[in-house]
């Protein structure tokens, strides 16, 4: 379940999509828009854009890698694009597995790789009216 779009992300819907009576551990990461940049500047909001087909292919590749590295695990990845306000969810990664260790490892791997590889860009809109493209970190 891989998704990129402008609609608000509903983590519960992603979790429900992975529900399986054999899976006892579910780990969800939410990346939320902060009110400060890493350098301390006050942020009004973010703008995200993506090269969607490549980003979705990257999500699928990352999920397959996690499965291979950590064992049987299902992943849902959703990233929002467009203008976001402080406090909104920009990205969600859900990992479900029989046991929690696998779910934790897969979730963390997926968000780390997503940030590193997926063609998604973030522009910070500052309180003073300026804007700047930044590395897609959390």
């Amino acid at each position: 379940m891989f998704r990129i779009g402008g609609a608000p992300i509903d983590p519960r819907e992603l979790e429900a999509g992975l529900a399986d009576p054999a899976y006892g551990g579910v780990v969800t990461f939410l990346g939320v828009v902060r009110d400060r940049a890493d350098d301390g500047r006050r942020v009004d909001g973010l703008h995200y854009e993506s090269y969607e087909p490549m980003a979705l292919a990257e999500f699928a590749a990352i999920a397959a890698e996690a499965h291979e590295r950590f064992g049987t695990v299902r992943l849902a990845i959703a990233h929002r694009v467009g203008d976001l306000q402080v406090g909104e969810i920009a990205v969600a990664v859900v990992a479900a597995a029989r046991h929690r260790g696998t779910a934790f490892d897969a979730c963390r791997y997926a968000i780390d790789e997503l940030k590193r590889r997926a063609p998604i860009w973030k522009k910070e809109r500052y309180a003073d009216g300026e804007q700047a493209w930044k590395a897609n970190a959390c």
Partner: protein
Amino acid sequence: MVRVRVLAFAAVRDLLGEHRLEIELEDGSRVGAAWDRLAAGHERLAALRPSVRVARNGRIVSFEERIADGDELALLPPVGGG
């Protein structure tokens, strides 16, 4: 001639002033020639060449790759950070 669709993202898009455009190049042209055509006269855009990756039909390629008619070239600034 080959006609290709170009998609520009993030800083590249801002400097180019457009997200999506079409350009025509001579037969046998390489990816680098497409970039050079777009960056001609744009000093700040041209300066991004070393950091920009180009995807041809959804796959990252080198600037030496040959272009075919109908290709989609995506100009991708660096991603990732931590």
